[in-house]
């Protein structure tokens, strides 16, 4: 087969949903740091979100499955720790999808802008930790519903 271009590979990676938050893709999340051909091997560089995140190995498996289904035979997945992943790398599209899904997107200010359910702005933090390592728990004092906030890191 002819070797697909890296842009094509990026496109394929952009179709893989995050295993924990399927509303966004791996490229939305910003964890794919590089795609390159080294001779006849495709090297995909991935950075972990949290060092103990159980989704990390699943993500690698899904990348491998997806790329193999597109005919990639020689594939190497490289783990890159530095620069450490930051929510600043999440795409604008990813942020919008998160909010539509019911998770308040990360903000440099350190807290959610508004309730992803009712849009209320009177909010309180319940805990720095949530249902996955990347989220915190907040509550909206307008609609009284708790919600997930994708925390900044």
């Amino acid at each position, binding site marked *: 087969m002819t070797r697909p271009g890296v842009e094509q590979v990026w496109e394929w990676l952009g179709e893989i949903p995050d295993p924990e938050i399927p509303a966004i893709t791996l490229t939305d999340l910003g964890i794919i740091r590089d795609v390159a051909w080294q001779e006849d091997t495709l090297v995909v560089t991935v950075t*972990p979100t*949290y*060092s*103990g*995140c*159980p989704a990390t190995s699943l993500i690698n498996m899904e990348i491998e499955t997806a790329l193999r289904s597109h005919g990639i035979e020689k594939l190497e997945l490289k783990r890159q*720790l*530095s*620069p*450490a992943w*930051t929510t600043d790398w999440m795409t604008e599209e990813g942020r919008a999808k998160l909010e539509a899904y019911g998770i308040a997107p990360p903000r440099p200010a350190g807290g959610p802008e508004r309730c992803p359910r009712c849009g209320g702005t009177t909010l309180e933090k*319940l*805990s*720095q*930790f*949530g*249902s996955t*390592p990347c989220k915190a*728990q907040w509550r909206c004092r307008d609609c009284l519903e708790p919600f997930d906030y994708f*925390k900044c*890191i």
Partner: protein
Amino acid sequence: MADTIDRTALQQFLLRMGDNTLILGHRVSEWCGHAPVLEEDIALANTALDLIGQTQLWLDYAAEVEGAGRSADDLAFLRDVWDFRNVLLVELPNGDFGQTLMRQFLYDAWASIMLGRLQKSADERVREIAEKAAKENAYHVERSADTVVGLGDGTEESHTRMQAALDYLYPYVGELFESDATDAAMVEAGVAPDPAGLREDYDALVGRVMADATLRLPEKAYVHRGGRSGTMHTEHLGHLLCTMQWLQRAYPGCRW
């Protein structure tokens, strides 16, 4: 970098870092499903998960530096008590929820300073691990400090328990700042700071949080030691390993 320095010392340093996060991570995970409220249960499980994730990074590197063909898993599950290099503080039993959070804060406060310094390490790998771990630790220390203040400056009952936790745990804090030949080799190679040099920042941070928590730091500073040198762990570590290592001991090489 790792080629030009004393590899035995570097490996010992990495074991100290990785064993601290491994043993504390396991301890904290014992709360899973038992915490007083759901939010706290989730927070403790997340903290444990981060610590075990950091362990993977430290022990991977320790195993590589050792060069004996062992993996991070081998180091975690097939060593016995005398080969562990964690400080005694992290192997102490959980006690009540307050004691667990007090232990967590006393550790998190140290880790926040240590990881900050390690980001200037001459060893690239150490620098990268510290950069990653520091981001996670920022959330741990924020929460453990908040909880220590909330419970310390809480009801009479919670205050009494937090003061008792501090009195029990504080004699184990001094070990974090002890130096030996391994530390000297790390300082010499620019890999890690002299532990003693972290004390001032630590005292400032802990002092501030204890003041907010209306808790009194014990005056007599007896220091329990022996964990990070491996000369003498507490009786508690063996019991912890019995649980943590059981599967690999009973079914060697078991995978799923």
